[in-house]
C-alpha cells in the first residue's frame, strides 16, 4: 500500500521528466535528462524555505499538504477500483487547491493564476460528461465494474471513443506546457505556483507527480482495461508520449479560447451521450 504510493510518486516524477524530454526532442533541443524532475524535487527540498510576508500562513502551508492528500486519496480510489464519482470529487478539490495556492501567497502573479484556475474550470466538464457516458454504457460507476465489463465486451477505447477523447482532453488540460496550461503561463511568471518555493514546491512536485500517475492510470483502466503491471506502465508511457507530442506542437491557447474549446467538446459529448442513451 505505502510502497505502491511511493512508487507512484517516483514514476509520476519520471513521467514528468519524460514529458519534458519528448517536448524538447520534438522542438530540436537536447532537453533535460528524464530523471530531472526527481532531481528538481530533491533540489527544492534542500532550498532555503520561508513564508512570504504577504502570504496567509495557514493557507499557504496547508494547501500543499492538502494537494498531496487529495491525490493520495485519488490513488487509492483507483487502486481499490472505487467509484468514478470519488475521482471527480478529487478533481474538484484539486481545482480548489489550485485556486488556494494562487490566493494564499498574496502575489499578483499567484492571484492571476488563481483567477485563471477558476476560469478553466470548464476543463472539468468533459470529465463529468465522461462519467455520465460511462454509466450509460457500462451501467456502473465503479472502476472495478468497468474493467470487468471490458474483459467481456472489449476495450471501451473503440466502442466509446468520444468519451475516451473527452477524458484525454481532461488529462491534456492538466499536463505541464500544454495548450490549456493557462494557470502557470510564463506571462504570469509561474502563475499560482510563483510564490511556493523550497520545501513547499517540493511538496507540490510530489502532489503533481501523483496526479499525473493517477490520471494516466485511470485512462488506461477505463478505456483499455486491467493489464499486468508492466504492460500497464507501457500503456501509460505511450499515452504520456502522445500527450507530449500535442504539448510540443500546440501553442498555449488564450484563457478565453481554452475555455471555449473545452465547452464545445463537452457540448458534442453531451449530444453523443443523449444519442447513446436514447438508442440504448
Amino acid at each position: 500500500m505505502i510502497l505502491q504510493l511511493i512508487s507512484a510518486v517516483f514514476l509520476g516524477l519520471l513521467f514528468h521528466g519524460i514529458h519534458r524530454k519528448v517536448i524538447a526532442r520534438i522542438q530540436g533541443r537536447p532537453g533535460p535528462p528524464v530523471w530531472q524532475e526527481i532531481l528538481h524535487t530533491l533540489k527544492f527540498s534542500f532550498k532555503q524555505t520561508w513564508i512570504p510576508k504577504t502570504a496567509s500562513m495557514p493557507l499557504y502551508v496547508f494547501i500543499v499538504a492538502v494537494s498531496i492528500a487529495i491525490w493520495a486519496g485519488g490513488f487509492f480510489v483507483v487502486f481499490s477500483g472505487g467509484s468514478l464519482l470519488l475521482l471527480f470529487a478529487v478533481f474538484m478539490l484539486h481545482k480548489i487547491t489550485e485556486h488556494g495556492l494562487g490566493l494564499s501567497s498574496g502575489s499578483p502573479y499567484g492571484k492571476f493564476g488563481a483567477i485563471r484556475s477558476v476560469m478553466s474550470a470548464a476543463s472539468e466538464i468533459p470529465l463529468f460528461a465522461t462519467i455520465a457516458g460511462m454509466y450509460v454504457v457500462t451501467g456502473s460507476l465503479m472502476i472495478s465494474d468497468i474493467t470487468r465489463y471490458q474483459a467481456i465486451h472489449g476495450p471501451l477505447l473503440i466502442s466509446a471513443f468520444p468519451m475516451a477523447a473527452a477524458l484525454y482532453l481532461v488529462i491534456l488540460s492538466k499536463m505541464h506546457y500544454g495548450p490549456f496550461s493557462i494557470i502557470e503561463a510564463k506571462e504570469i511568471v509561474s502563475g499560482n505556483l510563483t510564490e511556493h518555493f523550497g520545501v513547499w514546491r517540493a511538496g507540490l512536485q510530489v502532489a503533481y507527480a501523483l496526479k499525473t500517475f493517477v490520471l494516466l492510470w485511470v485512462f488506461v483502466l477505463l478505456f483499455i482495461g486491467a493489464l499486468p503491471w508492466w504492460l500497464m506502465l507501457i500503456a501509460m508511457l505511450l499515452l504520456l508520449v502522445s500527450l507530449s507530442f500535442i504539448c510540443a506542437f500546440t501553442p498555449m491557447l488564450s484563457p478565453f479560447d481554452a475555455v471555449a474549446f473545452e465547452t464545445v467538446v463537452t457540448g458534442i459529448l453531451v449530444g453523443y451521450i443523449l444519442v447513446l442513451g436514447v438508442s440504448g
Partner: protein
Amino acid sequence: MKKNTFLAVVFISAAVLCIAAYAASTGACPGWLPVVAVMLAFPTSVLSLFLWWNASNTKGDIPFTGY
C-alpha cells in the same frame, strides 16, 4: 519548529503509515480507515522530512516563519 521536532513528526507519521498499511493488509479495520490515515500521514511525513533535512543544525527556527 526545531529540527528535532520535525524528525519526531517524521517518525510518528511514518509509524502511522506502517500501522495503516498493516491494518489494510490484514483487514483488521474497515477499508476506508487506513486510507484516511494514509491521506493524513503521507503529506505530513513528506513535508516534515523535507523540512527536517532543510533545517540547519546551528540556527534556531528554520524554516523562518516569522515577521
